[in-house]
């Protein structure tokens, strides 16, 4: 509303007049630094991949080893984001709706995967889920191998994505109006009916945003995965690792081609996340809260 009025009053001006100083300095520094550190290097990546001809480019990115790595990277990331969709909701629900001893510490620890270096979570998860590890030893008799398989990759990606889901769903769940639930219950709605008709519609945009954030983060993840994955070509090799291998073989163009594919996917995810968040905001304003 406000923005619409402002645009109408100054349709051609690049910037609204203001008494505050420093626009030129701060805007100039921001765009210069952004270009130097982020934009030009990313452009160099795309340009490097253009040194390949079209057929060479396709050959690199559709190479069976590369396709195998996409399958693992995207498959495990989707699965991990799906696991987080369920468990992230349960954790967010627990933290929003229930009181129990130690809740504040648990709430603070949700951010741990953000703050913990990925190399640390990588070696720690590998140790816990190895055949003789704390958890791995109980899965071993059932024939479930976690470390050095795709299951381990999924476990690492689940841990990395968990805070994104919980922190996105938590505020949305806190918004659910309890009086609506109570009213529905008084009118005879069952538990699942209330969940489906009142709670789910309110938190759905947040859950999808969390899913997309967790997925986007997982696809690019490197540090926590390479320790637990075993890194066998075609089997447990993720795409970021394949890029590193190509660089170590001084195949800069091949690395750039794969990097361009991943960058393209990052852009699509970024767009999807922005659209989901805009949808969530629209819903939010429409319900009048």
């Amino acid at each position, binding site marked *: 509303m406000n923005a619409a009025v*402002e645009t109408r009053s100054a349709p051609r001006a690049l*910037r609204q007049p*203001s*008494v505050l*100083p420093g*626009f030129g300095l*701060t*805007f100039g520094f*921001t765009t210069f*630094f*952004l270009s130097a*550190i*982020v*934009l030009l*290097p990313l452009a*160099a*990546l795309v340009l490097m991949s253009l040194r390949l001809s079209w057929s060479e480019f396709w050959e690199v990115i559709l190479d069976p080893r590369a396709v195998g790595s996409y399958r693992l990277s995207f498959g495990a990331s989707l699965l991990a984001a799906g696991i987080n969709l369920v468990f992230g909701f*349960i*954790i967010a629900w*627990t933290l929003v*709706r*229930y*009181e*129990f*001893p130690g809740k504040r510490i*648990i709430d*603070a*620890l949700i951010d*741990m*995967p*953000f*703050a*913990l*270096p990925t190399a*640390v979570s990588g*070696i*720690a*998860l590998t140790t*816990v889920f190895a055949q003789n590890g704390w*958890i791995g030893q109980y899965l071993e008799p059932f024939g479930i191998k976690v470390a050095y398989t795709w299951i381990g990759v999924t*476990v690492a990606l689940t*841990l990395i994505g*968990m805070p994104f889901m919980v922190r996105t769903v938590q505020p949305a769940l806190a918004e659910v109006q309890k009086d609506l639930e109570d009213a529905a219950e*008084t009118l005879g709605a069952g*538990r699942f009916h209330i969940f489906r008709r009142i709670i789910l519609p309110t938190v759905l945009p947040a859950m999808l945003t969390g899913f997309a954030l967790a997925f*986007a983060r997982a696809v*690019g*993840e*490197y*540090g926590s995965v390479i*320790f637990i994955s075993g890194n066998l070509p075609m089997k447990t090799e993720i795409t970021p*690792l394949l*890029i*590193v291998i190509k660089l170590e073989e001084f195949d*800069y163009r091949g*690395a750039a081609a794969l*990097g361009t594919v991943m960058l393209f996917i*990052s*852009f699509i995810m970024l767009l999807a996340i*922005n659209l989901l968040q805009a949808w969530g905001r629209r819903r939010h304003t429409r319900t009048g809260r």
Partner: protein
Amino acid sequence: MMASRATQIFVDEHATRPGRDTLTTAFVRAFFIGVSLLFLAALLFAPLATVFTMALEKGYEAYLASFSDPDTGAAIRLTLLTAAVVVPINTVFGLAAAWAIAKFEFRGKSFLITLIDLPLAVSPVISGLVYVLLFGLQGWFGLWLQEHDISIVFALPGIILATMFVTFPYVARELIPLMQQLGNDEEEAAITLGAGAWMTFFRVTLPKVRWGLVYGVILCNARAMGEFGAVSVVSGHIRGVTNTMPLHIEILYNEYNFVGAFAVASLLTLLAVLTLVVKSLVERTGYKGH
């Protein structure tokens, strides 16, 4: 104390919700808390505990002795140096970006915000790769740099650049929403009353946003010290020279020196815990990060 409060809330909830089946509610509650705790125990608490049990597996002497390894010392120094360069630069950038974006209305603003967030969406491997493609031997400026005997990749400048890329948005994205929310009224009053630009910034704006700034800086620092993927690509893994702490963990781990690897990991874990403690303290002042 804690239990009685929980019971009280439990009772209150039931008093206001007469229709609810108490037994089912209690069961659902236990189920949700149980599943949450089990999930976090397996995925988060067990790995955290492992770091310290593995580090102390052979006793305190072995733990402390692992820090006297000169390569470990060099890795710690390099990590501290990198953070000491990167965090102040990204803090200045974050303040400048937040001032331009929050204090003024201009076209393409949301596009600029998206671009600032870009490093968060990009794989860390790509964050390192771009600098190798620019400054590596077969990169765009590789030959020129070699002729002039300048090394960026596989040396300190590359590590700093890659870390800067990865931690680029952290301060800015804390400050932008905070400054937008706090508004410009005080700043406009200060300027109208004759305060200079810098005075307004240091005496009005900075005190207003200080907790958000602290929050952004500690997050930026945690990521700078812990970055693995991007730095791994540009560092070249030269022991004692271009090995940061996370890279040194990888080397020690692959050499089956588990006490050494987890000893270094325990330091970074403590840093992460410290980061979360500062974050909780900042949130207690009323500032809520997003």
